[in-house]
């Protein structure tokens, strides 16, 4: 049991930090434009596939730097030529544009790399067990992922809170026209923030790709969970996104690791009852309901605390 708790906590924190790499960008982009970027998980997927392709061509370490930059460039192009032109048609059109993009990116990726998982491997340098804990080998690559996400997290925090650029970005989020009057190019700030957000998603993809499965449906699988994270944490709240990311990462990881069901706790139902929804619920294991836990959480939060954990505004 102790083994399960330690390993699941490590994995959960790791998954949570990955989620935060994505949700931080998504949250900032939301505060900036008032629009949820449906394509954000697609940028994560693009990062993984670019990372895979560049790793095959030039090796993992250059890919680790180049792939996020490429994804960031794609993101900036989307903001500059897509969203900025759509802005005049309203928020629904902007949201739908990103929805269409997410759809198209998934199709493009499966067109180029196929629908089955690609062979994106952990680099040989990091392919060894970092330490052994209760007979389980913990891979060094996961520690590397954790370190990268923590470093990015700290860098992001310092940039936003302690530098001039961060100051301008924060001001542009709330008072774009005032920042414009002070002589800053707000359009370019938005484009850069969008690019950095996309690049962070891309980075998450590059480092998560070898550890998780790199496949054309990875965006569709992660996207909804990402939205749960930022609605749960409170739309537009970075600390909220951080807490929600860790929480959902831990919940998901622990749920997958647990195998209990109502039947294992209270004993099996009388078999004479026959199959019914009750027997389905009775026999389902916690691991099986892990995929729906985030959505249950979302519904509960929206019922009891509609603004999310740390959110301030109602919509």
């Amino acid at each position: 049991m102790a083994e399960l708790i330690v390993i699941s906590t490590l994995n959960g924190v790791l998954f949570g930090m990955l989620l935060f790499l994505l949700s931080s960008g998504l949250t900032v982009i939301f505060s900036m434009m008032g629009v949820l970027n449906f394509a954000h998980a697609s940028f994560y997927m693009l990062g993984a596939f670019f990372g895979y392709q560049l790793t095959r061509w030039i090796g993992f370490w250059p890919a680790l730097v180049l792939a996020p930059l490429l994804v960031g460039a794609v993101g900036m192009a989307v903001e500059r030529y897509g969203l900025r032109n759509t802005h005049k048609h309203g928020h629904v059109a902007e949201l739908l544009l990103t929805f269409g993009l997410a759809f198209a990116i998934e199709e493009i990726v499966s067109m180029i790399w196929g629908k089955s998982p690609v062979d994106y491997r952990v680099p040989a340098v990091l392919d060894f067990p970092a330490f052994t804990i209760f007979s389980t080998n913990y891979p060094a690559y996961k520690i590397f992922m954790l370190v990268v996400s923590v470093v990015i997290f700290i860098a992001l925090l310092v940039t936003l809170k302690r530098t001039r650029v961060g100051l301008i970005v924060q001001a542009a989020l709330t008072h774009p026209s005032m920042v414009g009057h002070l002589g800053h190019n707000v359009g370019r700030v938005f484009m850069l923030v969008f690019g950095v957000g996309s690049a962070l998603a891309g980075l998450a993809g590059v480092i998560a790709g070898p550890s998780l499965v790199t496949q054309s449906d990875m965006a569709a699988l992660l996207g909804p969970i990402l939205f749960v994270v930022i609605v749960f944490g409170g739309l537009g709240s970075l600390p909220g996104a951080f807490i929600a990311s860790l929480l959902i990462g831990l919940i998901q990881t622990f749920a997958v690791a647990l195998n209990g069901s109502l039947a294992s706790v209270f004993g099996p139902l009388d078999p004479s009852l026959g199959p019914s929804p009750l027997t389905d619920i009775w026999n389902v294991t916690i691991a099986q309901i892990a995929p729906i836990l985030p959505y249950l959480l979302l519904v509960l939060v929206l019922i009891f605390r509609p603004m999310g954990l740390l959110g301030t505004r109602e919509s």
Partner: protein
Amino acid sequence: MTNAPTPSLAAAKQEPGSALGFYGVWLLAAIALIVLPLIFSSGGSLTSFCLIGIAIIFALSYNILLGQTGLLSFGHAVQYGLGGFLAVHVMNAVASHNWPIPLPVIPLVGGIGGMAFALLVGWVMTKRAGTVFAMISLGIGELVASSSLILRSVFGGESGITTDRTSLMPMFGWTFGPQIQVYYLIAFWVLVSAIAMYALTRTPLGRICNAVRDNPERVEFIGYDPHVVRYLAYMFAGFFAGIAGGLTAINFEIANSAYLGATQSGLVLFSAFIGGTAYFFGPILGAILVTYLQLGLTSVTSVWQLYFGVIFIGIVMFAPGGIAGILMKHRPLIRAGTLGTVIPSYLVAAIPTLAFALGIILTIETVARFSGGDVINLLGIPFVATAPTTWAAAAVLVVGGFLVARITWRRVAEAWDRAATVARDRGYLA
């Protein structure tokens, strides 16, 4: 200013003859639905008509939310799918108990199923509109779609639940075994649902829905609760989506978890938006086009879904009113008689635009078939995906087409402005 009536005022001040025109449209639609299978009687086209009919009801029900109440839902297939599942279960129950319930009533059961679910979750979901509604609809959609795989006894797991539509009591001697009888059943429900949904837009509730979409705060000031209005709209949308789901269950004699999924929700959003959400008939056009493309493109290209995405992005960026919006934009010009001055510039713009579109198609197909090395057959000209000449042709078409099209569309805009000015002078354009 006085010669610029808003659409609703214009509708109120109808001249006596227009009532005939109004009922005439529905009469024509009914006749068209009856005659269609007599003209196109092949099995394939009959199947397509059935799918298109169902898609029309589904897209119209979606537009109650998006177009009329301003609620962007990413989980509309939930009501559709649950309606389908309830219909299948009721059909099986009716067949096993020999209840005297004929098949044509079953879609109503589906509708009630969709509405019941909307009744259950709608109150919480419609608390707020906008992004939060979009997110929670996505969340509920995922929740139900994932749960359907857990509750195997109700949803039949991966394989779904089957039924037999002929096992129910025959009506007027019809057993609904042959596809043509199912077609007329679907056609009947398409007409009834379309009329009902159109009537709904004309009721005070329909009008208040529009007001909630445009300015919920003012609606509160005149004494309505936007939350209640959204809830009601959500239930009606669920009802008609359930009817569509019930018809699908009858058509395919199966209900499975794919009915509830995100793909289905995405398709209905595409249909409604591509057709145009601002007009009642928009989603009808969209449903016809999307279903037709879905059926037609699958045999031509392996990446047909990408074309959907591209068309959708194009509509969102350049014509957010959809096809109906584009058509209706021309109405004042036609009435003012100035459309003729715009058409030449359209014809000029069409050539580079077409070249650009062909370039995009060639690019997509080249990428899609690169590894297979298949030949692309575009307008009768064979292109080899691995040949550099094909890449060059695609690049020239895309870049050249884009640059020339940009100039010609600027011309269109100028011609349009002139025509619109004349139309405005003649009092046909606000």
